């Protein structure tokens, strides 16, 4: 072997190792959401049209859930504006995604109120409510925290609550949660990738 050939071989080996390393890392990291996927526990709720829905209703589409309440003054409208931006950014592929706002204040958030509320953002976003027991069950299924907190000096309460978006894949498996961060463009990109992963057929 000439010196040039030796150098070429060495460079090639390093290059192959680097590429393999990158592939391996991706192979380990990327499907993490899928490999840890667990079936979402069954839930039954009422949608914004007053119709009963279950976890099975949304199969075949990716489902992105947000848990909030109508009287929430800041984070919920901000998150729903973001959800509307997301649907617009997805364009035609938005049909593969169902975004739903699940209330953690079922005593006040009726189907009609949810419908009126969500129409301000994007009427493609479903509103889900139910009995306090049904809300307790669905929040438990996603590990969502919520609690009433009295508003000082007013005969009123607010809710503390988890504010992640929870993505369920087309086959009803929990895919991953997203935190609402400051850079919405970055999150739209990240969600788009996750939605296409969630929307693609998975090994059964």
């Amino acid at each position, binding site marked *: 072997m000439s010196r040039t050939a030796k150098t070429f071989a060495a460079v090639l080996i390093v290059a192959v190792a680097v590429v393999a390393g990158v592939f391996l890392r991706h192979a380990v990291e990327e499907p993490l959401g899928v490999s840890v996927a667990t079936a979402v526990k069954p839930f039954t709720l009422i949608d914004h049209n007053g119709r009963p829905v279950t976890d099975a209703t949304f199969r075949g589409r990716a489902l992105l859930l947000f848990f909030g309440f109508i*009287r929430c*003054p800041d984070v919920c409208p901000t998150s729903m504006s973001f959800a509307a931006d997301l649907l617009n950014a997805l364009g035609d592929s938005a049909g593969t995604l169902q975004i739903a706002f699940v209330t953690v204040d079922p005593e006040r958030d009726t189907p009609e109120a949810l419908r009126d509320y969500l129409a301000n953002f994007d009427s493609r976003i479903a509103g889900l409510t139910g009995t306090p027991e049904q809300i307790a069950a669905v929040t438990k299924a996603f590990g969502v*925290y919520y609690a009433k907190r009295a508003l000082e000096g007013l005969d*009123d309460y607010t809710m*503390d609550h988890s504010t*992640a978006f929870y993505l369920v894949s087309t086959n009803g498996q929990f895919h991953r949660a997203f935190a609402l961060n400051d850079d919405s463009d970055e999150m739209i990109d990240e969600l788009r990738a996750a939605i296409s992963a969630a929307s693609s057929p998975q090994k059964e």
Partner: protein
Amino acid sequence: MSGPILFSAVSFRAIWAVTCLMLNGGAALAADAPRAIVVTQAWVRASLGQTPTTAAYLKIENRGAAEDRILSVATPAAAAAQLHESVSTDGIMRMQAVKSLGINPGQSLELAPGGLHIMIMGLKSPLKAGQTIPIKLRLERAGEIEVEAEVRGLGAAK
């Protein structure tokens, strides 16, 4: 303003208002004097039906040489208003009342969706896009500053 009687009544009111403002620190006056605290981009989110809560946002800039603090906020449009911050701890969002908010000289602070905001509770009537409501800030040094906040749609993100 035509009649002299009416005119003098108006003048008296104006003088009284100016006196009150000066006693309050004179910050809202300052047509010619440079103001230390400048509040801009004030807006408030429209409310849904009879929902009594909403949030307002604004930008506050300290052009002065000393730190100033927002001590309280108020609006005649609602029973109560408070400085709040949406704080996420372990993925759980809680709204915390912010007792006072300091602004260093040369600093500008933005109250924006998803973080610091003015929580408005007990709205007297629903807020519709296109309206404006006054928001009063009380500052330690600058005194009371009143701004008109534009009501933007419920879906507005900024």
